[in-house]
């Protein structure tokens, strides 16, 4: 389980995470949603140690996230915009990643060992691209390589930032199947996506951030009951509408003469 306690992060005067406290349940798929600039990517980057929090802490299974990179052995990460060295071939990139993972002590399991029977290269139709340089690949194929790297090491925790962006319908379906298989395996998955219909069949828990603040952290079932929505997409749409309304009312009360108007 990931526990985030009183996490704050600012870039200069801009606060991107404001006193965020939440838990991400183990072995379940959690959707991290919110409007643009809600702080979703910063939260994921904080878990990875790419962003140093201003205050607060993150604990993964009783191990606090600090500068020791060992905890990342258990993490698979799919960034929003995959960028790879242009002149390496896909095969070489995967060997590079294997090399790095193998370099850390304690990684006994090699690629695929912990997820038997799954060949990600075939799953994402990458066989024909293995000897092509990464700089020559289309955005969609790069995203497939991105997925292959993230799922390759049988991680206990998967952090997927907009994983379906740029994928064709077939690859998108395959990716969702792979995520579902990970759920069966007991992997903890945190996924951010703007396309809520993608998360509908997958997400069991939801975290909703607005303007760096945690608005909702609940199971999808509870959220549907509370909002009276038919599905996740509708529930989140209602949450977003509520947030927009409350932001408008705050703006109204802050406007000169707003008290008089309200009264």
């Amino acid at each position, binding site marked *: 389980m990931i526990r985030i306690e009183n996490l704050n992060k600012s870039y200069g005067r801009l606060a991107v995470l404001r006193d965020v406290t939440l838990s991400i349940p183990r072995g379940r798929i959690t959707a991290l949603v919110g409007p643009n600039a809600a702080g979703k990517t910063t939260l994921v*980057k904080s878990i990875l140690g790419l962003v140093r929090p201003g205050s607060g802490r993150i604990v993964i299974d009783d191990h606090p996230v600090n500068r020791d990179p060992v905890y990342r052995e258990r993490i698979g990460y799919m960034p929003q915009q995959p960028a790879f060295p242009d002149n390496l071939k896909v095969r070489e990139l995967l060997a590079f990643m294997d090399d790095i993972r193998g370099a850390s002590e304690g990684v006994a399991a090699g690629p695929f060992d912990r997820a038997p029977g799954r060949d990600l290269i075939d799953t994402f139709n990458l066989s024909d691209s293995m000897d092509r340089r990464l700089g020559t690949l289309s955005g969609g194929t790069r995203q497939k390589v991105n997925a292959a790297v993230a799922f390759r090491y049988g991680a206990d925790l998967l952090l997927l930032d907009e994983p379906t962006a740029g994928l064709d319908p077939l690859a998108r379906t395959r990716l969702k199947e792979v995520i579902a298989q990970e759920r069966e395996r007991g992997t903890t998955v945190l996924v951010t996506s703007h396309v809520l219909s993608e998360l509908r069949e997958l997400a069991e828990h939801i975290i909703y951030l607005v303007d760096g603040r945690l608005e909702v952290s609940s199971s999808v079932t509870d959220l549907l009951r509370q909002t009276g929505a038919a599905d996740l997409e509708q529930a989140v749409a209602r949450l977003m509408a509520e947030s927009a309304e409350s932001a408008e009312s705050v703006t109204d009360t802050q406007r000169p003469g707003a008290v008089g108007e309200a009264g």
Partner: protein
Amino acid sequence: MSVSARIARYELRDVSRGRWLIVYVALLFGLAQTLLALEADTTRALAGLINVVLIVVPLVGLLFGTLHMYGARDFNRMLLAQPVGRRELFNGLYAGVALPLAGATILGLGLPLVVGALGDSSALAGVARFLGVAVVLTLASVSLSFLTSVAVRDRAAGMGVAVLIWLSLSVLYDGVLIAAASTLPSAALERPALIMTLLNPIDTARVLLLMQFDGAALMGYTGAVFRNFFGGTTGTAVALLTLTAWIILPLLLARRIFRRSDL
């Protein structure tokens, strides 16, 4: 093999396959070959090459290193999502960029010069000294490029700073020195000029290289002072130490910033 060495190995492969490096080798080879064809012997060709190398090598090191670091930013995030420490990544990146550039310098300049100097031991010694200084200058300029790219977040501004550093060290510096020389008496310049030389890696390299020829005689009174200082063992050692400091100090500072910054 350490994590840094593994990263350096793949970086090196990526950089070595890039067009930039091939063009750089061809440029240096062409310059050396042209001067060899124009001059009667290797020593005279070397003397002619010094000024060209003092301009081209730092410029390419600064621009290539800065461009590469900005281009690799997203992939660096991905590498840091693996069990890789920032120190290891930084060391691997530096080796992966600086070594192929140093190799290109040796190959592009060394091949024609060594062939031209074959059979003449004193000319060969001169070529070795020349290549050694060119490599040290390459490593120092890559260090400065790494410092630039981690200290300046914006890519365009960073490229501007890299060009400004090169311009200051190779053009503006000369202007200041000429202005000082034309307004102050030679005796008053003696010590400040020595200090200024040691504060500029390009000038330190220039003096180290010129000392092997009679070029210092052309520099008048200050030239004689330089010859006395840099011509001796202590002076050469101080110059080499200064150049080494120009490699190490910016690199340590850059690594310190890299380890603490948000990515």
